[in-house]
């Protein structure tokens, strides 16, 4: 573990947007109690997928983007991450495996560590609107996961 304190992202974000002249602080969506469900089977029998905020189809204008379920075979070699708020001073996203672990998952499936990698991965847009995320994007991804008989979804936002 790092010996430094974790970055206080909520406070940092509030101050950052206040400095940009926005007078209303962002309110993060949150559960009242933590949801929890176990897959109920060993890892070697689990189908695994990935949910990412990296953009596979940047040609769709940002304000109109919705959740998408995309075959892993159509995952771009390089996603578009330019509009996401990662730390552009400290690092880069040129290495896809630093945020999208398809190669590792394929290897684990080949070794029998997991049952398989699901047919599709899922894009979730970073949305200001709680309603869009909670009542449209999340249910859309959950439906697709059920269709693909997914047991474990790894949410890996940038």
């Amino acid at each position: 573990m790092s010996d430094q304190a974790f970055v206080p992202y909520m406070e940092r974000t509030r101050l950052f947007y206040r400095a940009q002249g926005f007078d209303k602080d962002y309110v993060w969506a949150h559960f009242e109690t933590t949801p929890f469900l176990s897959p109920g089977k060993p890892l070697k029998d689990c189908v695994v997928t990935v949910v990412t905020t990296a953009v596979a189809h940047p040609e769709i204008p940002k304000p109109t983007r919705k959740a998408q379920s995309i075959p892993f075979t159509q995952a771009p070699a390089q996603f578009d991450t330019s509009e996401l708020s990662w730390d552009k001073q400290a690092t880069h996203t040129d290495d896809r495996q630093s945020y999208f672990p398809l190669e590792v998952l394929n290897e684990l499936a080949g070794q029998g560590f997991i049952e398989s990698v699901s047919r599709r991965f899922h894009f979730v847009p970073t949305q200001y609107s709680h309603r869009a995320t909670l009542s449209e994007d999340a249910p859309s991804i959950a439906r697709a996961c059920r269709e693909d008989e997914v047991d474990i979804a790894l949410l890996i936002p940038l």
Partner: protein
Amino acid sequence: MDIVTHCKVPRYLHNDLPLGNPLGTPYDRKTQIASVLSALSLAAGAKQSVVEISDASWTGSPAWKENYNKVDETNREELLRLGEENRRKRAENKALGLSRQPRP
């Protein structure tokens, strides 16, 4: 860490790295593989909600923790300009009708 714990997620693996490389520093395959293995173990093995902090660490300058979205006298004007640009762009998008349509 603070946002995710505020949201209350069932399982969370924290890598204390700059945003952008949640699985590990670019090209650090060892950490990237370890992250996936730890996340899968949490998903299949945890009996209750859990936050796990990995031993992954940033090998570059530690200044990233101070610098991310920092506001100080050197960038106040630039941030105000960015805010204005952001508001102008939103207004433009609205005028063009660029917004999400509800799913049918």
